[in-house]
Every structure is written in structure tokens, then in C-alpha cells.
């Protein structure tokens, strides 16, 4: 049986390789920061199950400190130059897309067709984890296919992977950190407090009021926090789960999916989402810092209405 732990070991080995390549990159003045950051992430993936809760807590604080206090830098990864890439793109053509398409294809095939498949009575995948495991297998197969099609140096998947991970930097850990914050919010009842506040304005027994409060709350909270990932655990614990799912019997997958997309409508409207809204305004030398937001609002607001309507008509039906 292929388990999620095996995926973690693979990811741990990958992050460890990134740490080692960074340690050997003399071009990066902050190389030991990068080494420490990816090394700590590797420790989490390889040994997280044995560290205990408090050990993992210290580990995540260390990751936040190394990543958050500016210890990460960029080296000069050895990769192909622009001219080589243009020539390579012309030579290889659309074949370049093939390995990239292998990843979603394998992930979908494994997640749908092989989900509950068995060999001699043993399940292929750990129950409930088929999609993630298939994705990891897809990533490995895509890498092998690209290696055999294009014959780059064998270390290229690791050095190129390291190049991309260092470009993403600490932001790579942001979703996992926000998910963890959500768990702390849940453990301390933050959602319940907001839910109590919300229940003072949501009329008793009104499905549509609950849906409007949840979708609108996701958008509003995202505008405030700049990130739908941060808003999701709070608003879902406050309104989505207790009211829409538990009280009115709504479908949790629909509630979560459309709730998150309502949050994305908020992302389009807030300067707090600097990466998406302020950075391009600067990149494109726009005199108005909010020009991109202004171009987005006439789409974001109708979509928020559409999301609210979709949620109302779908979540109680499936």
C-alpha cells in the first residue's frame, strides 16, 4: 500500500536536497539562512511524526523566525540562459507541454479510477489519500518523462526545483501556516465567538441570511486580512460549519469550495493583497496604485453575487 507517509519522505528528501544545494552555493551571501530554512522543512517532513507536538511547535516557530526575519536570499542557480531556452523551445515545440500535462492526468486518474482499487485484496492507496498520493506519483512520472525526453543533466530536477523554491521562498510555507493558525483558532473557539456575533444579526432559521452572511463575510474578511486562506478557517468555523452544514444540513464540499471563491472576490478588491494588486501596478508603472483593483471590482462584485446565489441553490440540494 502506498501511504501518505511515503509522500512525506519523498518531499522531505526533496527539501533536504534543496538545503544541501543551497549550502554549497557560494554565490548566495545568505546561503546558510536558505540551508536552515529548507533543512527545517525537511526535518518536519522526515521526522515530524516522531518529534511530538511540542517539538513540532518549536520547529514551526524556528521556521517562522528564519523565514520571517529576512535570513533568506537568492543564489545564482546554474540553469540555462535565455537564448538557450528560446532555441530549445523552438526545437522541442509542444512536446514541452507533455510532461506538464502528465501531472494532472496521473493525479486525476489515480484520484478517480484507482481510488479504491486493490491488488490481491490490498488497497493500492492509503484510504482517503488517493488524490495526494497520485499527485506525488504524477510529479515523479513527469520528472522521469522530462528527463528521458530532453536528456538534461540528472541533477537538473533538484537544481531546477531548488531554483523555483528559492524564488517562492518563505511564501511556500504560508498556506500550511495559515491552515495551522486555523486549527489554533478552532481549538480556542475563535470561530464560535464570531459565530455568536454573527448570530445576533442573522435571523433565526433563515437559510438565505446564513448564506449571505457566510459569502459576504468571506469577502469582507479577505479584504481586511488580504488573504482568503486566512479568512477561510475563521468564517467557516463561525458560520459555514455551524449554520450552513450542521444546522441546515448543507453539503460541506460545496460550502467550502464556493466559500473560498467568495473570499477570492475579496482578494480582487483589496490593497492588502499586495502581490496580486499592488505589485503589478508597480511592475507596469501605473501612476494609480489602485488601478488594477479598479479594473477588477466590476467583475469581483457580480461574481460575489453569483457565488452567493450558487451557494444558496446548490449547497442544500446535493
Amino acid at each position, binding site marked *: 500500500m502506498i501511504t501518505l507517509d511515503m*509522500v*512525506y519522505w519523498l*518531499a522531505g528528501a526533496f527539501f533536504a536536497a534543496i538545503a544541501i544545494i543551497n549550502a554549497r552555493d557560494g554565490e548566495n551571501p545568505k546561503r546558510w539562512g536558505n540551508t536552515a530554512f529548507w533543512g527545517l*522543512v525537511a526535518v518536519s517532513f522526515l521526522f515530524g511524526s516522531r518529534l511530538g507536538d511540542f517539538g513540532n*511547535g518549536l520547529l*514551526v516557530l524556528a521556521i*517562522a*523566525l528564519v523565514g*520571517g526575519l529576512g535570513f533568506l536570499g537568492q543564489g545564482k542557480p546554474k540553469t540555462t540562459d535565455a537564448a538557450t*531556452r528560446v532555441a530549445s*523551445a523552438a526545437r*522541442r515545440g509542444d512536446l*514541452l*507541454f507533455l510532461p506538464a500535462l*502528465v501531472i494532472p492526468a496521473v493525479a*486525476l486518474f489515480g484520484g*478517480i479510477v484507482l*481510488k479504491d482499487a486493490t491488488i490481491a485484496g490490498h488497497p493500492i492507496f492509503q484510504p482517503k489519500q488517493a*488524490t495526494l498520493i497520485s499527485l506525488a506519483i504524477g510529479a515523479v512520472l*513527469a520528472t522521469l518523462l522530462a528527463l528521458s525526453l530532453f536528456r*538534461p543533466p540528472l541533477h*537538473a530536477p533538484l537544481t531546477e526545483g531548488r531554483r*523555483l523554491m528559492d524564488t*517562492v521562498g518563505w511564501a*511556500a510555507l*504560508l498556506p*500550511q501556516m495559515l*491552515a*495551522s*493558525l486555523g*486549527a*489554533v*483558532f*478552532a*481549538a*480556542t473557539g*475563535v470561530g464560535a*465567538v464570531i459565530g455568536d456575533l454573527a448570530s445576533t444579526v442573522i435571523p433565526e432559521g433563515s437559510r438565505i441570511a446564513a448564506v449571505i452572511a457566510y459569502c459576504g463575510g468571506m469577502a469582507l474578511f479577505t479584504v*481586511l486580512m488580504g488573504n482568503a*486562506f*486566512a479568512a477561510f*478557517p475563521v468564517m467557516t468555523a463561525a458560520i459555514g*460549519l455551524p449554520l450552513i452544514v450542521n444546522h441546515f444540513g448543507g453539503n460541506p*464540499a460545496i460550502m*467550502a*469550495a464556493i466559500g473560498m*471563491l467568495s473570499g477570492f472576490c475579496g*482578494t480582487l478588491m483589496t490593497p492588502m493583497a499586495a502581490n496580486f494588486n499592488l505589485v503589478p501596478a508597480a*511592475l*507596469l508603472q*501605473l501612476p*494609480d496604485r489602485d488601478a*488594477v483593483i*479598479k*479594473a*477588477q471590482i466590476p*467583475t469581483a462584485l457580480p*461574481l460575489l453575487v453569483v*457565488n452567493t446565489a450558487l451557494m444558496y441553490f*446548490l449547497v442544500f440540494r446535493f
Partner: protein
Amino acid sequence: MLTLLGIAVVIAGFVLRFNPLLVIAAAALTTGLAADMGPVEVISVFGKAFNDNRYVSAVWLVVAAIGLLEREGLQERARVLAGRIAQATTGRLLFAYFVIRQATSALGLTSLGGHAQMVRPLIAPMAEAAAEKTLGDISDDTRHTVRAHAAAVDNIALFFGEDIFIAISSILLMKGFLEQNGIFVEPLHLSLWAIPTAIAALIVHGWRMLRLDARLAQAERAA
């Protein structure tokens, strides 16, 4: 009410532009302490959650293959394909980019677009060139409007495309959160229900893009 202090920390931290990793760690600790947990207990709760949510970051395994393909010219090839639709007006060009960006995001290829990689070097100049071709000399205001729309198309197509891919981090965040609350959902179901909104985004923004040429012409006449 004191438990809401953590949310105040998140908002204050993001407003003051502190590093988000630090903001989140501070908010987690604040929330736990405000809820009368001891320091060790707070750190343990946060650590357990981090460990339980490792699969959210396990998706980064795919960058080995993507980085390798970039090395061989993936983005350059994407640019060639985008260049073939250069015969269009601003609105049609941005509409075409919207469709491509949304479709590739839905397949998990979110790194094929982006403001630094695609919009600034390629989409914005092509959209401006198309506007000049149809409207002649354009004012700075119109030029800036076109550029802002190029960036907006990238964002909107990404946001309402990526959630169709089962292994994008937002899908995994939802799965993780529901699981902590005792509800098991397959990522596939979450991505399936992102499709109606994706279609709505295509219709709403596509309609706006196809009307953009007329709006730009009107603005030019008024200027």
C-alpha cells in the same frame, strides 16, 4: 471576546507589512494565551496542527518537473503560442489570454502566467500595441487602463481557474480544515464545485473584455 485578539494581530500585522510567517506565528500564540492556555500548550497545539497539515506543502514536489521544463524552454514556448493571437484587438487579445490562463490554471499550470513572467513582458505590451493599431495615438490614461486590465485578467483567470485543479493549496487548506472538524471530503469534490463559478467568471469577465474595445474608443473620443 479576548480570543479575537489573534485576529487583531493578523490584521495589524498585515497592515504594518510585517512578514506573514511571523504575523501568523504571533497570532497563533496570542490567540492561545488569550484563551488561557499555557505557553507549552499553545506551542504544542500549533505544532500538532502544523504537522497534521504537512500535505499542504507536499504539493511543492511538482516544482522539480516544472523547473526542469522551464530549463528546456516551457515559458518561451507558451509565449510563441500567445504571440499567434496577436492579430486581435485589445479586448479580444485579453479575452484569449483569459481563456488560456484559466484553462492552464485549471490543469495546475499556474506558473505559466504571472505578472512578472507574462503580463509585463508580453501581455501588456501586446494589448497596448493592439490598442494603438485600432485607435491610433492613445492617451496615457488609456494606456494605463489597458495595462491595468492586462494585470486584472491574469489575476481573475488564475483565481477562478486554479481551484479546479485538485492539488492547489487552497483546496488542500479546505480539506485540512474540514478534516480537523471531523468531515472528510475528497479534494476532487471541492474542485468539482469550483467549476460553476469558473464558468460565471468566464462569462462576466469575458463580456467585459469583449466590450473593452468600445469603451476604450469612447474614452479616446472624450479625451
